């Protein structure tokens, strides 16, 4: 039974259905794996007792013929989703001890489908980062290492704990959230599949807010099929989120079989950027060849405002964050640092409770929204956002899906890029544009870099056309046949 954590989510589902093992056995295998891999620091909170109790209930339900679509499958939850009765930190000091009395809609949907929670995964504080190094609970370590070099690497971020846990076989899948690339970039760094659905596909209710016009939840899994399966369980309309889309959730898994014959795949010329490695360009070319061989047609397209996406994002996201994070004031939950007056108490609490990157972004956001600067920065950025969105709409008049790299480089070492915020921001150069336009995107592991690290390719689709995106992602996955395994994998002699 010690190999149950090596199954894909779909394999585990089928094994449970055929009675080859129980959810309790499957869950125990993951708990054992998790306990043997604590050096990765992928979890902030482990919930093994609750997991086993939930697995037991799941086995009973299955016995009664009441199995849901995720019945008995153990998964991890990014510690940005509020979970009733379980510590929820956003990896920030300022949420010390916060135990919600409610459950986020996305996690409630997963539990209704029968899934089992193993624990809460680490992230960049308030999901602000691309390396999971700004967590109050310390950095997460990528299970992958460079060939012949055991220097610890970052898992990407902000959903780095979820990506590391899935890559190291500590969970069958995990939830992530993506504001500018926080699902897709760590998926690329850890050699897994990361899906950011269309804005509005998953409810944001009960997810700790960062930038409300950009935040979306999505699945992180080892295969495209698992991602399709898990997104189906997470998605759906929710009256508690006014931006949640009131439309039916398609059968994403069925879409995998659609194939790409005749599909028009756009190749945005502006994504070929200065300083890109020859290796990454070769991988991208390989991706084009794979999809061509599968029957798709490559079409050059232009997204002229691509270079303005990152600076636009770094106005919009901090502006929204400065507003959303105003709620952490030492009054209703979390940390309080006393002061002589109410204002001093606020300032002391927030000064001590927020880390450097969060403080920096709140200050930038406050600045760009402050009197006299609103038009010059925030309004300007919202206009650029219109242009960026228009670029995509025009491209999608000609093509069905776009193919790009996911991240400009493979994983880097913990400690690198720490002294220059803009160098860190450049990690999201390929993922941010689709976020600004609310489009669905997926990162699929496509190959290994020269020093043996995974790299992903990204597919971007029209709003609410995740089905075409999944069909293309499946074709890419099939051709890439990515089966390399990380050095630090549970049960791999560790």
């Amino acid at each position, binding site marked *: 039974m010690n190999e149950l954590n090596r199954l894909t989510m779909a394999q585990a589902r089928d094994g449970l259905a055929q009675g080859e093992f129980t959810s309790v056995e499957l869950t125990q295998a993951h708990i054992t794996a998790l306990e043997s891999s604590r050096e990765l620091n992928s979890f902030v909170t482990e919930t093994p007792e609750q997991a086993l109790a939930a697995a037991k209930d799941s086995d009973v339900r299955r016995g009664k013929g009441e199995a849901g679509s995720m019945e008995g499958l153990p998964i991890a939850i990014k510690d940005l989703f509020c979970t009733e009765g379980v510590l929820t930190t956003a990896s920030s000091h300022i949420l010390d*001890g916060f135990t919600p009395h409610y459950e986020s809609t996305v996690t409630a949907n997963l539990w209704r489908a029968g899934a089992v929670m193993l624990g809460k995964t680490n992230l960049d504080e308030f999901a602000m980062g691309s390396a999971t190094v700004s967590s109050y609970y310390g950095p997460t370590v990528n299970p992958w290492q460079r060939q012949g070099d055991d220097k610890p690497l970052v898992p990407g971020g902000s959903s780095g704990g979820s990506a590391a846990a899935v890559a190291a076989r500590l969970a069958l899948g995990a939830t992530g959230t993506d504001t500018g690339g926080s699902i897709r970039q760590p998926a690329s760094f850890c050699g897994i599949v990361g899906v950011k659905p269309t804005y509005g596909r998953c409810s944001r209710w009960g997810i700790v807010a960062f930038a409300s016009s950009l935040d979306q939840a999505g699945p992180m899994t080892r295969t495209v099929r698992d991602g399709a399966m898990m997104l189906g369980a997470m998605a759906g309309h929710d009256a508690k989120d006014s931006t949640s889309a009131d439309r039916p959730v398609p059968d994403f898994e069925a879409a995998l079989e659609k194939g790409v014959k005749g599909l028009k795949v756009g190749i945005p010329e502006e994504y070929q950027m200065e300083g890109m490695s020859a290796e990454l360009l070769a991988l991208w070319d390989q991706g084009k060849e794979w999809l061509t061989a599968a029957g798709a047609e490559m079409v050059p397209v232009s997204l002229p405002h691509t270079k*303005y996406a990152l600076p636009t994002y770094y106005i919009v996201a901090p502006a929204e964050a400065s507003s959303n994070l105003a709620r952490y*004031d030492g009054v209703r*939950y979390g940390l309080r640092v006393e002061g002589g007056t109410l204002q001093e*108490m606020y300032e002391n609490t927030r000064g001590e409770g*927020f880390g450097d990157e969060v403080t920096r972004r709140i*200050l930038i956001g*406050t600045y760009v929204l402050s009197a006299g600067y609103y038009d010059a920065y925030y309004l*300007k950025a919202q*206009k650029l956002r219109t242009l960026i969105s228009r670029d995509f709409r025009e491209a999608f008049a000609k093509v069905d899906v776009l193919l790009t790299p996911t991240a400009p480089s493979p994983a880097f070492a913990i400690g690198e890029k720490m002294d220059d915020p803009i160098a860190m921001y450049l990690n999201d150069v390929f993922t941010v544009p689709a976020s600004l336009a609310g489009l669905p995107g997926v990162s699929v592991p496509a190959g290994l870099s020269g020093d043996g690290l995974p790299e992903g390719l990204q597919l971007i689709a029209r709003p609410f056309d995740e089905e075409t995106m999944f069909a293309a992602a499946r074709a890419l996955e099939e051709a890439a046949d990515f089966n390399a395994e990380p050095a630090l994998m549970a049960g791999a002699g560790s």
Partner: protein
Amino acid sequence: MPLDKATVARIATLARIRVPEGELEGLAAEMEKIIGWVEQLDEVNTDEVPPMASVVDVDLPWRADKVSDGDCRDKVLANAPDKAEGFFAVPKVIE
């Protein structure tokens, strides 16, 4: 517009974040670099471009104006660092 120490101190007060005096200089330099970098947006003429109001093309839904939740005072207060008599407790505001 230079982003100097005094500006950062003013912004920090607006944002209610205590920033130690010794960190203001460094923060000002970092913020100035970031603001300088985002100012490349000025290259684009946006005179005729409307600002984006909603990222997806949907109308906000309407609902009846009636209470649908509540009666859970103790749950709301459960995580409060300080509370008294069924209220959140804060330092005295009025002398």
